[in-house]
């Protein structure tokens, strides 16, 4: 298997592109981001965002200038701070309820009240959510399918109905983690983006309708029509397309006001400040590891590697240690939540293992055929 010569991404990662020098587009984007080669003009980008902000303030038809979709994570908390304090916008924070919320996550959501913005915490019927978590896990190997769809859709439902002109998401994933060329510089987050990049993995809302779930149950997950978006004057953007996304600078700002990390990194992760609100993140990331040969730790190490804060060889050792690890306690709790036994769980996991790159050692135990390098 081929790996990027600069970072730890393998060629199996979807939507990753290697150049002739064997460098992935995510690393090339980082060079642009940090002003090394083909630098992004951040001053110019910032002035573009300021124009959007001015337009939103001038043209808003309701009582808010923008929506910030908020999970309670460091990124969205930072976005709220920036929107309110730097850009002086009237912010409506919108949360799509996390079904497996942690205590730390709960604390971080509560912090929105301290920041002083209005906040809608939207909870899709737990009965429906549970069923969608199970289907997401069984069909596409992602228990968080419902959360991806929710967070990329529900804020727009409120934007359209409250006539709010801007929906501000955080980092541009195609710039940070790799994506087709045209998508790296696009700052728009719309329905097409959701379908193509929004973590839906080819599974759509209408696929979820069955004997237990009706179209009406899923109505809040249907992206508003373009006509409705237009008449509300609503558009979604990535803040990370306009301002250089650097966790090293953002984290102290949110911690200063009381935002908390996890006591320890989740299994399979390397840092304690990501996915703080997702108890079962290790399960999703184990499946990603079994599908593509890399996990969450690699994503996190790569970011620090591109920021020049760790070397590739150090990172490789860490990734080998952490990627794909999972907590048995979490696995059991997850099985209980969706109502399957361990045998079914392991058999679903097994169906997603890429056996071109993994050897099966035992039930639920896999080893990469080739040592990572």
């Amino acid at each position: 298997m081929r790996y990027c010569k600069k970072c730890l991404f393998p060629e199996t990662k979807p939507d990753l592109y290697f150049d002739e020098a064997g460098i992935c587009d995510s690393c090339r984007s980082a060079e642009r981001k940090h002003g090394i080669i083909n630098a992004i003009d951040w001053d110019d980008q910032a002035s573009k965002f300021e124009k959007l902000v001015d337009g939103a303030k001038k043209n808003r038809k309701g009582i808010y200038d923008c929506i910030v979709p908020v999970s309670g994570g460091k990124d969205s908390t930072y976005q709220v701070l920036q929107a309110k304090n730097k850009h002086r916008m009237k912010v409506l924070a919108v949360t799509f309820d996390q079904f497996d919320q942690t205590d730390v996550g709960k604390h971080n959501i509560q912090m929105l009240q301290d920041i002083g913005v209005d906040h809608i915490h939207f909870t899709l019927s737990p009965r429906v959510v549970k069923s969608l978590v199970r289907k997401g896990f069984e069909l596409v190997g992602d228990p968080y399918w419902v959360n991806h769809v929710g967070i990329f859709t529900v804020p727009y439902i409120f934007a359209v109905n409250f006539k709010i002109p801007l929906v501000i998401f955080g980092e541009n994933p195609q710039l940070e983690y790799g994506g087709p060329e045209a998508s790296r510089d696009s700052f728009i987050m719309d329905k097409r983006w959701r379908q193509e990049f929004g973590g839906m993995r080819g599974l759509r809302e209408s696929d979820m309708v069955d004997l237990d779930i009706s179209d009406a149950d899923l109505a809040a997950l249907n992206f508003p029509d373009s006509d409705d978006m237009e008449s509300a004057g609503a558009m979604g953007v990535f803040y990370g397309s306009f301002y250089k996304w650097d966790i090293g600078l953002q984290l102290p700002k949110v911690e200063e006001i009381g935002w908390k990390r996890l006591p320890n990194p989740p299994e399979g992760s390397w840092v304690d400040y990501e996915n703080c609100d997702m108890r079962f993140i290790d399960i999703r990331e184990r499946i990603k590891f079994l599908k593509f040969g890399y996990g969450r730790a690699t994503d996190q190490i790569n970011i620090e590697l591109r920021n020049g804060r760790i070397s590739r060889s150090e990172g490789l050792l860490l990734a080998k240690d952490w990627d794909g690890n999972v907590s048995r306690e979490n696995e059991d709790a997850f099985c209980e939540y969706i109502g399957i036994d361990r045998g079914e769980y392991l058999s679903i996991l097994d169906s997603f293992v890429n056996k071109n790159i993994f050897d099966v050692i035992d039930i639920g135990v896999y080893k990469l055929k080739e040592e990572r390098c």
Partner: protein
Amino acid sequence: MLKKRVIPVVQLMGNTVVKTVNFMNPRQVGDATATVKVFSARSADELVLIDIEASKYSKQPNFDFIEFAAKNCSMPLTIGGGIDSFDTAKKIFSAGADKVLIGSLLHEKLTEVEKIATHYGQQAVVAAIDCRKDKAGYITYSSSGGEKSVSLERHFSNAVECGAGEILLTSIDQEGLMEGFDLELIQESVELSSLPIVVNGGAGNAQDFVECMKFDISGVAASSVFLWEGLTIKDIKSPLRDIQIPLTNF
């Protein structure tokens, strides 16, 4: 009147789902397992899986994955890519496929295709006819569009001669662009071919299926529209029902 089919086509490179544009620049979309499970849950009329690297690099098809797909697929499963002989086809049928999609072999060794059709029946052999338009008209190509071959008319005759039961007709010019089907190609093919045709390459929205289904064809196949636009089988069939196109009840 025979019911017309809507058929998702999934392009594969190993265990990875990819999508090409004009048969080039495969973009990695995701993992094959998830895609097969999603389409199975949707109850499409048929599922076509094509390994786009197999013939090009003379690789054997991924029999383990075909077996997995067949087990998880509640609809007829057609497998293409890398079918270089009767023996390979035999292994694919043993793995659980319902039909084989024959591309390069149809240009290279008609007798071998004939052997497959004789043994497994006409209904089990689909001729993949890939073509581009040039000044002289429509020309067919082998090896995933890599090598120029015979005229469209000649190749339709080849398909009949070797006992294929159906044609999967792909416009390489339109493939992956999502700008609509090549209606001129469909018209010409319907006139030339005595075999049922499934049209592929160009679907960008539900209306494209409506335009295409007006021709005397047996079905429409598509790929990008499911991946990027997010249409489901239900989204596509609903406007077709409105104009009384005969469809299966899924």
